[in-house]
Each structure stands twice: as C-alpha cells, then as structure tokens.
C-alpha cells in the first residue's frame, strides 16, 4: 500500500494510525500543568495537559487540531513521556528535536548526558524521515513546544 505513492515513507503506518485513532486525545479533569502550541502559519493547534506525581508525569492528554504529523506527534509524545520524570521528558524532547534537524542518518540520540536509556526515542523514530521535509518539522515539534510551556515553571 505504501509504495504506490511517492513520499509515503514520511507517513509511517504508526503515524497514519495514531493520527486517525489517537490513544491520548482528551482532557484531564484537574491537570497540574497545561501548555499550548500554535502555528500561525498553518493554524495547527495543540493543548497538552499533564498530571504530575512526585515530579513524574503520571498522565498526559492532548487536544490537537492539525495535520497527521502533528496529531501523531502529540499522541506518541504523550505515550512516550508518561511515567518519565520532568528532566527525562525534557531530554527526550531535546533528542527528538536533534533527530529532526540532523543532516546524516546516523542513529539519533547523541546528546551528552547520562540518561541514555530513559531518553531513548523508541517509537518517536518514526518521525525521522521528516528530516527530508524541512517545512514539516515544525508540525512534529508543536506538541513538544506545548510540553515545554507546560513544564516551564517546574524546577527540579
């Protein structure tokens, strides 16, 4: 199915499925932290709500209006950061950004720091082909912008 259309590599099955059937869409009744991201160029919008327990992210929900990349990025971000400490979540975010902008195809995640395992990208590597679509990188980064805003005053 995926080889009938040029460029389909960008749209990993996981991305298409999560954009159509997100697992973490919705709201948290009483969130501890909320962040929003908006891309004025395209109108994509995401709102990320977090529950924190002992400085760990215990629950994540997002409300996202946007393209498949943005929707799937929000949903897979929510999945990936659930259970992480705040610094761990930030580190995953940094690695995700680094993966999107790096020029070569060497394995992602060469950021200094001692949290190699907890900061692994896992399923988020599905977004790696975005490197060839510069104009779409911001779609995948938008939920992470919202997360950053949500965590801006969390000092650990």
């Amino acid at each position, binding site marked *: 199915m995926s080889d*009938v259309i040029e*460029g389909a590599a*960008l749209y990993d099955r996981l991305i298409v499925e999560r954009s159509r059937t997100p697992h973490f869409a919705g709201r948290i009744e009483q969130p501890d932290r909320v962040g929003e991201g908006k891309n004025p160029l*395209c*109108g994509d919008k995401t709102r990320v709500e977090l529950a924190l327990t002992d400085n760990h992210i215990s629950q994540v929900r997002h409300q996202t209006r946007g*393209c498949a990349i943005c929707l799937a990025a929000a949903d897979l971000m929510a999945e990936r950061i659930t259970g992480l400490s705040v610094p761990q979540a930030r580190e995953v975010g940094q690695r995700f950004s680094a993966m999107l902008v790096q020029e070569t195809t060497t394995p992602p995640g060469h950021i200094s720091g001692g949290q190699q395992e907890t900061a692994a990208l896992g399923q988020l590597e599905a977004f790696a082909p975005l490197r060839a679509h510069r104009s779409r990188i911001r779609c995948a980064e938008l939920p992470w912008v919202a997360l950053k805003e949500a965590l801006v005053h969390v000092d650990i």
Partner: protein
Amino acid sequence: MSVGHHTTQPQQALESSAIRAQFPILGEKVHDRPLVFLDSAASAQKPNAVIDAMADTMRTQYANIHRGLHWMSERTTEAYEGVRDLVAGFLNAPSREEIVFTRNSTEAINLVAYSYGALLKPGQAVVISEMEHHANLVPWQMLRDRAGIELRIAPITDAGDLDMDAFKALLSDGNVALVAITHMSNVLGGVTPAKQIADLAHAAGALVLFDGSQFVVHRKTDVQALGADFYTFTGHKLYGPTGIGVLWARKELLEAMPPFMGGGDMISTVTFERSTWANVPHKFEAGTPAIIETIGLGAAISWVESIGMDAIAAHEAGLTAYALKRLQDVPGLSVVGNPQDRGGVVSFTMQDVHPHDLATLLDRNGIAIRAGHHCAEPLMRRLGLTATARASFGIYTLKQEIDVLADTLIRIRDFFV
C-alpha cells in the same frame, strides 16, 4: 461553469508548448519528477522575457533614475517611466499620472488606508468583505483603531459569492466612505461583480477600491469600465518579479491625499522649516524605487499582452472547468465554494486527510500546490475550516497536469483511508 473548453482545445496544446518553452523553470525536476506547478496564485513563474529584461538592464543599461544628468540615468529613467505607460494601458487608466508604483498590492492598500484614510472622519465607515486576503483587511483594522472609523464586513453566501442584499444594507445609512473588496478571491476563485459593487457604492456616496491581485492575471482589466476609484495589483503574480506592485487611483484623489512616505523623489522643495510635495504620482514614490523590478513588470505586461488577455482567460476557463470535473473523481474530495463566476483557482479539502499532508505528498510527486489558510483566516472561520488545499492555474498550465493532480490525489486517498 458558463465557459466551455471545447472550442479552444486544439490550439491550446500547440500554444502551451510554445508558452512553456519560455519558462526555463518548467524544465526543472522536483524529487526526480517533472515539476507540476499549480501554485501560480501564490506567485507565478517568470518567462524569459522578464528574466532577460531585468538581467539586460543590469548588464547594459542601469543607473539611478529621475536625478541623473548622464546618459545611463536618462535611458534608465525612460525605461522606468515607460512602464507607467504600459501599466496605464494594461488597466485602461485615463492617465499615466494615476499609476503609483509600490512594493506590492499590500503596500498599495496600506498607502490608500494611510493617505486616503487621513481624510476620513470618525464615524465614517469602510466596508470590506468576508473573503478578503489579510492584505485588504489588516490595513483597515489599523485605520479603524487609529482614526476611529467603523469597519463593516459584507458577508458572503455559502457558495462564496458576495451577499448583495446584505452588502446594500451595509451601505444604506450613507456613512460609508469606501468599499474595499477583492476583484477575485484568492481562496474561492470567485470573481466579484465589480461594476455592480462600484455602482452601488457610488449611489451610496462611497468610493470603491478593488484588490485586483488575482484578477488581473486572468482577465482583461478596465478600471474605467468598472467605475473603480482605486485599483491595486502586484507584479509577481502576473509573471513579473517580486518587489513591484501598482496602485491606480483617480488623479483628483491622489492629489487630495497626503503623502504616504517621505523622502527623496517625492518632494518639490525642502527646507528645514517645511517641504512641498512633487506632483502625482511621484508624491507617493519616496526614495529610489524598485527600478529593475519595475522594468521586469513592464516586460511581463508586454508579454501577457502579446498573448492576449482574452486567450489567457479562455485557456484558464477551460482548465478550471476540466479541474472541477476531474476533482469529482477523487473520493472524499470537496471543492470549497461554488461561486457564480470562477477564475483559475480551486480550493478543496479531502475527508480525513489534512491539507498539509496532501500538500506534502503531492510535493513528493512533483506537484506544487498551496495548503493552509491562504492569508484569509476570517474566511476560513466563515467556511468552518482551518485550512484548504488550493490548486491554481496559469498561462502555462496543461490539462495533463490536472490529470496528474487528480490521479495523485486518488492514490493519496487510497494510502490514507
């Protein structure tokens, strides 16, 4: 669609290959595919006539204009001022002195909002429509906030036409000083009934400005026949360069309006106490203008006129009718709007596939379209959408390219759903 495409088919193919040969960029490949460029409404590609005119100016005949006392300056001034005559002819303006060169249509509208706006009194109103590009909306909001005028929004119908009854009602209290409306929507492709709008505006004591950025590319423009008071367009959508646009306004309006920007070239005399202004249009052209770009615009106008606006209009009407037909073959696709009179712009959405995902996948197949809110956010809200995909057609667009678009959209639909 009132205009069929049956009569022009045979010559069209012939003409098209000769026309396309004049656009070097159309020979380029994108992602190893032949470029299918369906984004001319954002900015059109440039023919050799324009590229060469600009390059030749820089190579052989360039100096600053209006002030030089040497041969190069005199020749360049002639070339620059010659374009004013070409633009006047292109719009059928009564006088070359009514042509003001600006950076683009946005700057032309800002000029009117600033300089004509300075003549308005609190309580007077400006009417725009729901389908304006931000360029014909934000300058009026700024004027409203600066000068205490009222900004009224004329609604559109669900089909994407101006709601004429509602428009008349907005004019009825006699407080409207200016109606500023697009001559062709950059999103819906609808051509507005400009003559009727102008007549209604004038009957209510209002002036009328048309944003012709999209229209002038597709059809013959006659500001006198329209009864316009102000008309704006931009060069880069008309196969000319960026950085050059045009404001046409009736001379007595330009004479009554204060300058927009101050500086060199727009003055008559300058002392430390006060300055007096140059005659129109120079009063509105402060500083060294975009000389090379203006010459490029002149080349673009000569080039489209050599093909003929009527031939261009017929070519694009055929393509648009064909596109509307072919897009019906794509499952889940909806064309946005169904205006009574449509130019070569078609916006669409696909169920369950975001316009940006469409644009990315089309791009990987060599097809360039626009996706997003098209600088018309309030219109998107009116339509209940956040974004659309838009294909737009130009002088070089081929029927086969519309087939490539439709066939690729069908494959994208298969992939996503």
